[in-house]
Every structure is written in structure tokens, then in C-alpha cells.
């Protein structure tokens, strides 16, 4: 048996189908034994590539938005956990309600345009009883610009947007406190991320619709 013959039979050899002739060639041939050792090393080390990296947070963000759009994420029938997580479980509906309010307002002005957000039958604006009463604090310094941006909208929209912005800020404050109290708790950390992302979505919606209006 020569090296070419051995190499041609390698796939079967590696699957366990081995002959005495192949073994004899291996014992005598350094090149083929080196080749075999290298292929075996590559094969066994390959499993180390199985779990390497995490995707960026944008993957979950985009996924979550889509799941909500399709109604796959919805208000649970019962709230199994109490306290902080229970209170903010429906907080997601706040920016969605704001989004619907803004989009609805734009559609009144521009009936031919299709908004970015497509409300589904399963996602409805949060009913009044689900929105905790929030005393109107002063506008946070970082929010003054965005409030100026939406100031030209109908007063009811502006008030709704302001309320949702205040709720988003309250959510962020509560999430920050939860992380301070439980710095190693992954859920608190994730909730803080969600809180910031919800506010980011409010900003983005307001800015997107402002650009749409400006183009008119």
C-alpha cells in the first residue's frame, strides 16, 4: 500500500473501518501517521467552537419587538411574581400606547401613509386602570429637547407622551434601584436594559414621526 492508496481510504479508516494493511502502512510511514494525527486533532478540537460568543443585545431587542407585534408576548393571565417585577410587568404597554397615540395622530393628518408600527388586534392601548397614577414631575433636563419636538402635536397627544415619558423615567429609576440592591441579579440588570430601551423607543418614535411631518 502506498500513501495515495492510504489517503483515499482515510475517510473509511477514520470511521472505524481499518485493515491490517493500512495499519502496517501507518506504522511504516511518518507522513501518513502525521496526516492522521493532524486530522484527528482537528476533528477533536472542533467541538471547542461549539459555543463561542453571545450575539449583540440588538438581537433580543429586535426579537422582542417582533414577538410583541405578532402578539406572542402578551399580558399574562396571572402574575406569579410580586413586588418590583409584578409592578413593571406591563410597563412595556406604556411606550406601545404612546406609539399608537403618535401614529394615530399622524394617520389623521396623512391618511395615505402607513406608520412604522402596525398595531395588531392583540395589542391594545393600556386601559386607564392599568396605568398607575403619576404625579406630574418637572420635565427631566435630558427630556426637554424631545418634549420641544412633540410640542407642536395636539395637546392630548403631548400630554399622553409626557405621561409615558414620566413612566419610562420612573421605570428606569426603579430598575436602577433594583440593580443597586442586587448588583449580581441578572433579571434586575436585564430589566434596567429594557427600561432604557423603552425610553429609547419613545424618543425614536417621536423623532421618526417629526421627520415624516417635516418632509411634507
Amino acid at each position, binding site marked *: 500500500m502506498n500513501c495515495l492508496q492510504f489517503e483515499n481510504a482515510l475517510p473509511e479508516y477514520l470511521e472505524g473501518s481499518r485493515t491490517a494493511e493500512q495499519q502496517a502502512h501507518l506504522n511504516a510511514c511518518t507522513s501518513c501517521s502525521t496526516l492522521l494525527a493532524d486530522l484527528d486533532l482537528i476533528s477533536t478540537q472542533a467541538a471547542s467552537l461549539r459555543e463561542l460568543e453571545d450575539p449583540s443585545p440588538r438581537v433580543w431587542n429586535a426579537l422582542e419587538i417582533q414577538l410583541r407585534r405578532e402578539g406572542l*408576548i*402578551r399580558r*399574562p393571565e396571572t402574575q406569579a411574581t410580586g413586588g418590583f417585577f409584578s409592578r413593571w410587568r406591563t410597563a412595556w404597554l406604556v411606550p406601545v400606547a404612546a406609539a399608537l397615540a403618535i401614529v394615530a395622530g399622524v394617520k389623521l393628518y396623512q391618511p395615505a401613509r402607513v406608520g412604522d408600527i402596525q398595531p395588531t388586534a392583540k395589542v391594545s392601548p393600556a386601559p386607564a386602570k392599568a396605568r398607575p397614577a403619576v404625579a406630574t414631575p418637572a420635565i427631566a433636563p435630558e427630556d426637554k429637547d424631545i418634549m420641544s419636538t412633540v410640542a407642536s402635536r395636539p395637546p392630548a397627544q403631548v400630554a399622553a407622551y409626557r405621561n409615558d415619558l414620566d413612566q419610562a423615567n420612573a421605570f428606569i429609576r426603579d430598575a436602577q434601584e433594583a440593580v443597586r440592591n442586587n448588583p449580581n441579579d441578572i433579571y434586575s440588570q436585564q430589566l434596567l436594559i429594557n427600561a432604557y430601551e423603552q425610553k429609547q423607543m419613545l424618543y425614536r418614535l417621536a423623532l421618526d414621526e417629526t421627520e415624516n411631518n417635516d418632509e411634507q
Partner: protein
Amino acid sequence: MTDARRPQGNKLSEAEAIEKAKQGDPEAFEFLYNLHKRRVYSLCLRMTGNTASAEDLTQEAFLQLFRKIGTFRGESAFSTWLHRMAVNVVLMQLRKKGLPLVPIDETTEGDEEGVVRKEPGAPDERLTGSIDRLQLQRAVDELPPGYRTIFVLHDVEGYEHNEIADLVGCSIGNSKSQLHKARIKLRDLLRANRPERAGKR
């Protein structure tokens, strides 16, 4: 594959999360995503060699899974179900791009004469002990798409040849043959990229 885990500070197992996700619980979805994201993303990244594509495909795989989660009855492991779905999503994407899932003949020069090139007097230098995960990762990324598919599915992810044949639409013999060629190609890449050839064993 991945064992069910409970996150710190919250008593939730994978089975419980699945049932809650069926009811639309957002935390349950997120728990399942965090539990499996690394494995799915790494698979997509290894098969596409592209970060942006891998992220899009990861999102799509989980989206398809969560759309169908209501039908999951537990006959197989959840991770197996998800993993198979991710593989199918990637393969579908590769098909759409017109990339070969299994090479018809991606031979390199010299293959007709065999891989083992005899250089009189030159010692054969093994790779043993001289490759690390990063080197291997880079070499896999350099593989032609068809070879990469077979290698990732078999050696990295642990699929058997009959499963690969089913997934990519080839014969078992073709799968074995292409795997062998993929490993040979990887060996060439690793030897070519080795920083020093100092006669190490």
C-alpha cells in the same frame, strides 16, 4: 446539549419557561432566549462566517421557534428542536444566496496526486499542540462555504452523516467525502498560517 438551568434569584426551569412562554409570558421568552442564544449564534456564525448574517439568522431561528412553541409537546429535547430549526434557517439562507451547501468538487491543486507531499529530507511537522481555538476558528472561516457547512455540522455540532445528508440534500457518502476534504483543507490552512515552522512536534 444545554442542560436546563435556573437563573440566579428566580426559580424557573426550562420546562416551566416553555409553559409560561406558551401563555405569552415575556420573561419566559427572554429566559429561553438567554439559555440558548450562545449555542444558536455560534452555530450561525460558524456556518456563515459573518457577524451580521449570524445575528439576523439567530433572530429568525428564535422567531420561528417562538411562533411554534405552542406545538412543542416535549417529545424531544427543546434544545434539539431549536438547534435543528437554526440549522434549517441557515441552510435556507445559504440556498437563497445560491451558495453550495455541499461542494460538487472543490478540489485544490495537487489533490489528484494526494495530500501527502513527500519532500525528501524534510521532517513532517505535526499540528499537535500547535493550534489553538482562535487559529482553528479563523481557518474554519476561510473554508469554502460547502466544506464549512459539512465540517461545522459534523465535527463542531455533532450531527451524524445520515442527518447531514437529510439536512443538506446529499448522499451519506458525499457527506463523508466532503468532510474529509474539509479537514484536509483545514490542515493546509492551519499549517500555512502557523507563525513559526521551527520543527516543533
